[in-house]
């Protein structure tokens, strides 16, 4: 294998392949494994499905509004300050408590089940109000200033509990945030009321497409203009909670430039196909197949502006960076007691520099990435340019998020590789940071 392995199957390989086929069935029986195997297949097929989009409710404008409501922008602060506001401190405290008490204990089972428990999703809405925070009060939300830094702090705190569950919880908020930021009056009054009650619909912001070197600014999903609106075609991948989602924001190329479209899941031509992944399994990721999906002219979000789309990609990346910081912190908090308690050669392994320096580097890279993420968010909410900062936060968390995930498993050795400890899940979840686009929005 002195380069790319181009060897094909030869006679011996063909024999082995045959043998494998023959051996499989009797072997299972001989070892009495038939039942377990059947159950495993059954479980997998439960997660593996293909269905039309969920459609439980009809969205319609309850109240006519003339102008869209937007949160007030934060004033430019022109200083260096890492102190959160009192309101942010309260929100973070409540979120961190929720993450520790609800998410962390449920993380492993939700990962296995490829689904977030309904109770947790409900409580995230009734107790934390994750979707309501960003919605202006004239639309029934909690109002207040637009705060991307609050979004970062919340995502970080949730992901400290469990990243997959955090994504499941935050997915609908990405759609409501998009409507708040870029929806026109009619789009807001049609869809936002659903996001302020206790019965918030599952919803998702779908950007990713299944291909190598995916670039969210060069989409293959297309929107074609028709007299009545648009026709969408293409495939979106790794869309959280897609099977139960009632509303999507879909990225598609319109006249060659990327744009965002509101697509109700019940629209004809929308098919959901399960797509469980390496991690983020609690978020029930799936593909959304769009086959001649007809949407009205009013489905176009933000007027199809290039700036809107770019901001959407950037704010989502800040969100993923924040998730990486939260899970990265979980790794750090987990390995510290472990390496102190684990003994080898007559002393705690933390007494060895090879071990201790890995812990230092987790902390150093995490802190650097976190500050970069916060700077990007703070610039966004102050109305300053933030393309550079969001791009850098993305790069750092993609790179060091994975490095931290890997160090977490490595520090636990064989114990890190088995499911008894959460570090193997965090390793899988942290690989998502470099891959995911959209989905969350701070």
């Amino acid at each position: 294998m002195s380069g790319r392995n181009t060897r094909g199957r030869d006679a011996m390989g063909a024999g082995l392949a045959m043998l494998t086929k023959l051996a499989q069935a009797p072997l299972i029986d001989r070892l009495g494994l038939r039942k377990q195997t059947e159950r495993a297949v059954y479980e997998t097929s439960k997660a593996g499905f293909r269905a039309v989009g969920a459609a439980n409710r009809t969205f319609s404008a309850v109240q006519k509004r003339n102008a869209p409501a937007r949160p007030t922008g934060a004033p430019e602060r022109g200083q260096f300050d890492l102190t959160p506001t009192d309101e942010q401190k309260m929100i973070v405290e409540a979120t961190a408590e929720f993450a520790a008490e609800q998410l962390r204990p449920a993380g492993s089972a939700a990962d296995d089940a490829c689904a977030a428990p309904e109770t947790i999703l409900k409580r995230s809405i009734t107790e934390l109000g994750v979707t309501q925070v960003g919605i202006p009060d004239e639309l029934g939300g909690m109002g207040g200033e637009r705060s991307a830094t609050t979004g970062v702090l919340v995502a970080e705190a949730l992901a400290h509990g469990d990243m997959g569950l955090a994504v499941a919880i935050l997915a609908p908020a990405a759609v409501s945030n998009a409507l708040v930021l870029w929806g026109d009056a009619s789009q807001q009054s049609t869809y936002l009321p659903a996001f302020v009650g206790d019965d918030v619909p599952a919803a998702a912001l779908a950007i990713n497409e299944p291909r190598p070197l995916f670039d969210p600014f060069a989409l293959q999903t297309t929107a074609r203009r028709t007299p009545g609106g648009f026709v969408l075609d293409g495939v979106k991948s790794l869309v959280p909670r897609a099977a139960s989602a009632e509303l999507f924001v879909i990225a598609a190329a319109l006249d060659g430039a990327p744009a965002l479209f509101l697509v109700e899941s019940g629209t004809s031509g929308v098919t959901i196909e399960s797509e469980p992944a390496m991690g983020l399994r609690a978020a029930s990721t799936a593909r959304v197949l769009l086959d001649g999906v007809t949407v009205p002219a009013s489905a176009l979000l933000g007027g199809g502006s290039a700036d809107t789309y770019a901001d959407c990609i950037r704010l989502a990346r800040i969100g993923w960076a924040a998730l990486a910081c939260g899970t990265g912190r979980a790794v750090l908090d987990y390995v510290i007691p472990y390496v102190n308690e684990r003994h080898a050669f007559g002393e705690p392994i933390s007494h060895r520099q090879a071990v201790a320096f890995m812990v230092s580097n987790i902390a150093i890279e995490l802190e650097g990435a976190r500050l970069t993420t916060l700077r990007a968010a703070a610039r966004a909410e102050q109305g300053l340019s933030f393309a550079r900062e969001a791009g850098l936060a993305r790069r750092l968390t993609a790179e060091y998020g994975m490095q931290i995930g890997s160090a977490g498993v490595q520090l636990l050795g064989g114990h890190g590789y088995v499911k008894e400890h959460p570090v193997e899940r965090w390793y899988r979840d942290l690989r998502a940071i470099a891959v995911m686009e959209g989905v969350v929005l701070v």
Partner: protein
Amino acid sequence: MSISLEVPKKFGMLINQAHQVSLEVFRPISRKYDQAEHAYPKELDTLAALIDGMNDGGEGGTGARGVRRDSSEQKPGNRNGTNMSSVLSIMEACWGDVALVLSMPRQGLGDAAIASVANDEQLARFGKLWASMAITEPGFGSDSAAVSTTAVRDGDYYVLNGEKIFVTAGGRSNAVVVWATLDKSKGRAAIKSFVVEKGTPGMEVERLEHKLGIRASDTATIRFTDCRVPAANLLGSPEIEVEQGFAGVMQTFDNTRPLVAGMAVGCARAALDEIEDLLAEAGVVVDYDRPAYAQSAAAAAYLQMEADWEAAYLLTLQATWMADNRKPNSLQASMAKAKAGRVGVEITTRCVELAGSLGYSENSLLEKWARDSKILDIFEGTQQIQQLIVARRLLNKTSAELK
């Protein structure tokens, strides 16, 4: 109280002044003094006078002395003060030339040490000196507790004996802050720092080093032979307080490490700015929005460097912000020094690689920056020492447990 990580506008003038100095004074003579290793950069005298004037006027320290922690009542609310402005001006000046910054009269690390730990009377006496820092000895480097230079009390004097090496600006400065032990058997707590002015009998500058980089800065060996120093020149408490241990002299590092981190950040920025221009000439445009892997390898390399730079920059500012707001910052100072030290080397050396023979030759300053940056991952605590400090803090280990 709101999260924001921007440099306040009030520092704009200061930063601009440092930038003008970098551009118009340092860069034009950068190569000259890199080649004439031990020649004194006389251009700096005029400049030093200018900086003294800037220091005396209004808020925002510019250099090493800005790190003094204000003992007056902390006003409520956020503060962006002299720790931050000092580091910002150092960053900007090191964008010009690290070696020349290290040679700036009255801007030595010893001055930062004096500013950090001197009492008001001492500050009045030593505040205008140009002071070097003398810690390292032939027998030890990182293990500062191994100081073997002795200080023996004799009436109103301490008598110093020992040899110090790697004293930055040791040949040119007019004073040296020397670490010496009052009693070797009492360990760290007995280590004290003394201000020794040049011309004190028994103090001899013996040799200047020839180095990989920062060649415009002189690095001296200084020998103390029965050198009598006034007892009032001891910085901090003269008592050997075992429980307080090393804290007295080590406190200096909380202030000087962010300064050195800032040097690395400034030097790395110089290389990044240069390579960005060179890449643009070669037709490579860096796009922050498009994924790195969807761009050229050179653009992807640039993005990674810029991201690491941003982390180092913000870690450095965080350490100074904490100092300005009276928060203990030892951990953050070491994190900043560790990250900035290593990415300084990674970035400057990678930029040489990207620029090819153009970057490697003496026709550009890229190769010089790649040499200069290496010291910043070594002095004021090596990369490994910073990691050790961070690890001990996080793991709650003593230096006896985690060696």
